[in-house]
């Protein structure tokens, strides 16, 4: 049985085609990265998987069931999201932020069990010192880390990350990557977007090369990340970067 299948996705916006003929099959526990130039449709694809956007054509199947036919709570128990930029419009404690990860499980009012789950995870990740601080004033790195922790609280099967390392310093990059490695080892499925090849090497099993909304190539890293493919992808000579990577 297919675990996660993205089938024939087509998406356009204001007469501009953004995604075309997207077909991907993902196994349970796999970590797959979408890689491509800016504007190639990566974020859009993620949002379609999360049902934030609806494709004009095509479906997404989870365990061979069409996810668009699920209600939103069920979907939230399957997919969790770490966006590129974390919004903080209002003041709130880190604890309050984390407990919102329980939203798909809460009927009306937060229960004691939900609080306990959050406390446990806070202890496990040793972020007790952040618990009562205003989430708005944490650093970008802390925010990303905590949002990632929230996916544990959300108990989702698939974790979707959109460029999680972009605004972070070295210390937090390492932390996040370490955590992602642990998540992968625990059997969760990860779909991510990264811009740097090092991260991809560290945690991804497969890579999807996305160019202008279409899949150029899919495959294991060492097969896919070649000078030829990258040059094709970016339409620029990437030889120099490849050298740096070594």
């Amino acid at each position, binding site marked *: 049985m297919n675990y996660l299948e993205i089938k024939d996705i087509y998406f356009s916006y204001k007469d501009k085609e953004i995604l075309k003929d997207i077909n991907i099959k993902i196994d349970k526990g796999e970590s797959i990265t979408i890689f491509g130039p800016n504007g190639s449709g990566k974020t859009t694809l993620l949002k379609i998987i999360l049902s934030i956007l609806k494709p004009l054509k095509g479906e997404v199947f989870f365990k061979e069931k069409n996810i668009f036919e699920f209600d939103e709570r069920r979907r939230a128990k399957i997919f969790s999201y770490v*966006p590129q930029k974390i919004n903080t419009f209002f003041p709130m404690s880190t604890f309050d932020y984390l407990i919102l990860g329980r939203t798909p499980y809460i009927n009306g009012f937060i229960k004691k069990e939900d609080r306990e789950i959050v406390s446990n995870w806070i202890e496990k990740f040793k972020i007790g010192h952040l618990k009562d601080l205003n989430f708005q004033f944490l650093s970008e790195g802390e925010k990303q880390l905590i949002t990632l922790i929230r996916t544990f609280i959300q108990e989702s099967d698939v974790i979707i990350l959109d460029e999680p390392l972009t605004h972070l310093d070295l210390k937090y990059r390492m932390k996040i990557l370490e955590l992602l490695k642990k998540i992968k080892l625990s059997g969760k499925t990860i779909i991510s977007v990264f811009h740097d090849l090092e991260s991809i090497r560290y945690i991804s099993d497969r890579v999807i090369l996305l160019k202008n909304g279409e899949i150029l190539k899919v495959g294991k890293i060492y097969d896919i990340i070649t000078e030829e493919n990258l040059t094709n992808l970016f339409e620029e000579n990437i030889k120099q970067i490849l050298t740096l990577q070594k």
Partner: protein
Amino acid sequence: MNRKVFVFIILVTLIFVFLLSMSFGSKKYSLYEIIKFLISPKEGDELLLKIRFPRVISSFLVGASLSIAGLLSQTLFLNPLADPFLFGISSGANFFVTISLFFGWDLIFKFSLSFFSFLGALFATFIILLISRIKGKITPLNLLLAGIALSYLFSSISSFLTIWGRDVLNRSVFWTLSGFSTINMEKISILLIILIPSIIFSLLFNVQFDAFSLGEDEAISLGVNVKLLKFVLLFLIALLSGISVYVSGIIGFIGLMVPNLLRSLFGLNHLKLIPLSIILGGLLLMTSDLIGRFILFPTEIPVSIITSFLGAPFFLYLLFKKRSF
């Protein structure tokens, strides 16, 4: 400021202001008389029962109503500076009032103007929803733009009718001066009929509102039906502010000040914020009404003027406050 201390202080102040409001007026009552009245209302003074008590209670209820409407407006717009009259509700209410003055419908029955203002608030909300839907997604920006566009449209038509119509300008001035001086139990029962279910409803959705406050995409990923929730928010805001306008006209600043103050102390937990808004908002408006009754006694100053006076220092406070939690 310790949160528990804060709650304690506002509760104590509430009781204090309540008793003060009950005792002050054209006829003064002693503490003893008031407590006796509260225990067995029927045996109390007629004036207390039919006029004083309804007035004090209604100022509290409208304050609560406006605060919750303000809270939900900020949630909906993902903006702490939103208030329930931001997106055209007040201009919608005013618009319907002007139309009814123009056609002379204000003379149909006594509170017909208030009723039309309520209809106007709902009508404006409906139109805005419609406009935003046509655009596609209902985003805070769309709502805001639609609201502003509608505001301009409504106010220009209103101005036109004011000039063209017979005596509309004079009669519309009276409308802006309304407050709690004509309150009676009838108005209160209508207020309660709308307020209580709205509060219960809001409380049931509290976690959804919390999640919505993180932003639309994140809320969707957390399992919130964002489309439905926006509609629920709009509807609740329209109802709560509409009914407040019906009871006592347009009163500004309460919906803006109270949730802001509370958020900085209590975070975004709607389960806490809603009851606290009720208490603080009710307290603030009850106090404002007391001040309005007291300063130029026996002349009444409309309560909306008092709340505007409070609004100015509040904005200064926003400017200068340290952003801490």
